């Protein structure tokens, strides 16, 4: 369970201080699904990065299962990301020179698994997103939707506790968008993940039971009774 208390993040930009997050309090239960919305530059991605241990708050605490990520040393934070967090990015962020299977394997490299086990688990993960036939394909040989599926397989191959997705459908057309959302929701249910997603797309946001809206660094939570 995530417990955020008084999280503030400030950036220095051209000698001015920018408040990306201001005194954010937020609780996300295990297995919850939360959508974060808000205008560009409002602090959505910053909050997601805080949750994923990619960045530290200027003040406040971010606890996951009682461990304050804000105070973890860099090496342990890296290990935490390797073991517990799955990321899905808007631009897929696949390594262009590695094929689908190898891209998925990159998430298992820090876990020091044997190569054979890595390969097997990567193949299974790709199978689970419907890409069992495309293990050897490079990102450039796949459509945007397929690339995002590879990215999802990469996020989930290590069985993380949390899945963080930053605009996962932002670069996809409408049909692909629905396809990816179906995949994500199915996997969320199957794996019992805590799933936090940033999106601009209101139609996607409406599918979530809780919606957090961030404006000028301040958060507002809305319960969505019409969630899918």
């Amino acid at each position: 369970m995530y417990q955020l208390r008084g999280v503030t993040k400030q950036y220095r930009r051209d000698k001015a201080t920018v408040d990306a997050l201001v005194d954010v309090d937020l609780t996300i239960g295990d297995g919850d699904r939360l959508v974060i919305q808000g205008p560009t530059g409002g602090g959505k991605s910053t909050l997601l990065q805080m949750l994923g241990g990619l960045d530290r708050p200027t003040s406040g605490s971010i606890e996951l299962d009682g461990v304050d990520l804000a105070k973890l040393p860099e090496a342990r934070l890296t290990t935490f990301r390797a073991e517990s967090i799955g990321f899905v990015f808007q631009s897929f962020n696949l390594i262009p020179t590695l094929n689908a299977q190898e891209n998925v394997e990159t998430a298992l490299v820090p876990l020091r698994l044997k190569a054979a086990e890595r390969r097997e688990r990567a193949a299974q993960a790709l199978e689970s997103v419907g890409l069992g036939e495309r293990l050897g394909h490079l990102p450039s040989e796949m459509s945007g939707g397929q690339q995002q599926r590879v990215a999802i397989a990469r996020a989930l191959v290590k069985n993380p506790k949390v899945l963080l997705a930053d605009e996962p459908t932002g670069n996809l057309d409408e049909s692909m968008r629905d396809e990816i959302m179906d995949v994500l929701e199915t996997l969320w249910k199957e794996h019992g993940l805590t799933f936090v997603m940033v999106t601009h797309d209101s139609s996607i946001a409406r599918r979530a039971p809780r919606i957090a809206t961030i404006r000028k660094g301040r958060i507002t939570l809305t319960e969505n009774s019409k969630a899918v």
Partner: protein
Amino acid sequence: MFFTYLRRELRRRRKAALVVASGLALGIALVIVVNSVSAGMNQAQDKVLQSLYGLGTDMTVTKAATAPKAGEGGRPRFEFGAKDDGKEQSSDRVMVQGFQTLAASTVDKVASQKGVADAVGGLSLQVMKVDGQFKRGQFKQDPGSGGATRQGGPGGEPRGRVEGGGASFDVNSYSVYGTDVTKAGLGPRTSSKITEGRAFKTSEADAKVAVADASYAKEKKLALGDSVKIKGVTYEVVGIATPDSGDAAADLYLPLKQAQTLAGAKGKITTVYVKATDSQQISAVKRGIQKNISGTTVTTSADLADTVSGSLSTASNLAANVGRWLSIAVLVAAFLVAGLLTSSAVSRRVREFGTLKALGWKSGRVTRQVVGEAVVNGLVGGALGIAVGLAGAYAVTAISPTLTAQLGSGAGGGGGRGPGVVMGGPGISQAAGKSLDIALSAPVSATTITLAVGLAVAGGLIAGGFGGWRASRLRPADALRRVE
């Protein structure tokens, strides 16, 4: 994963990799060529010095010749009694060459000095042989003048003229070196190999035997078993010696005692050849000898090398200075370019490395990946550089440009065909110089190849260091924010 990722990245960026590798290759090839040419120069210089000193000699001890006193005259003088009309007359003038003589006991004194492993004495001589004949002129009386006979008679004084007559002499000059037959391993004779016959035996300390230089033997049509006459003494040629390079130390080698007898210099030598126990201590040994044996001149190989001039010296200086600095400059430039290109490649891959860090890759692993790619680039550059460098060195050896080594300076003196070299060896004259033609080769040693591989790895590491440092400092949040 490390090697798969590395291989794929290098393949993807092969143009950039080729630029980095080519830069390093150029630098490494230059280092190999310059090093091998320098080694060739050193070998050439060693050959030149060996031709004077022989193998294993670290220094010589001599006593400089003094200017002739008034009335002594420096020129050889021959006296013939012109009695035997038409008969062949011959005279040899045997002179100690170049230096004042030293007492043979100097060898023992030198040998007893600290740091001296061995010492051997030698006597350097110049022989001028003049042979030919006088012919008396014939009186031819003018027709119709005086008596019928030259002695005159009735009818008046006979008139006429002397026709023909005169002198016809050959002057032949050659060098002779008296060698200590008990120490065959040291001294100038070691610069030649016995190619026919044999060397002196230790039992031939005072035997009438000679070893002839191959060129001299060819010129004088000398063969094994032939005899050579010097000052009325006949020597049997028991061996023909061919110099390893350049000219021979002398035309004829005789046992030391025989040479001393010929020159009327019993118990005298001109040069002591010294081998030091430790090649690093030569300067100290030199100082010790100069201090303890006064009036002598000690000349080391280094001193002699300093007197080498001519195209060999020029090329050697060129390789040592311009070549070395050029190689360093190219290498530094190649390292910098490789570093900047690698660093720039990291900048282009910010999203990639940010993603990997987000996935839990530690900075060290990302850095290793970057350094690994750079090192492979370096090794490819090294392999290319070694290939090009070897080809360059091979080309130099194949072309074998001839360099001239001029030993010593000044003109005149000497005479004859014996080497006249400032300091050192037999036939030495302080005023004369010696010119040797040496074919340049460019030997590539294992050390040079090791150096090249080391430079390639160093180049890769330096380039990887630039890039790796940038990659390690990359914060994943910043990296992802920058592109999204």
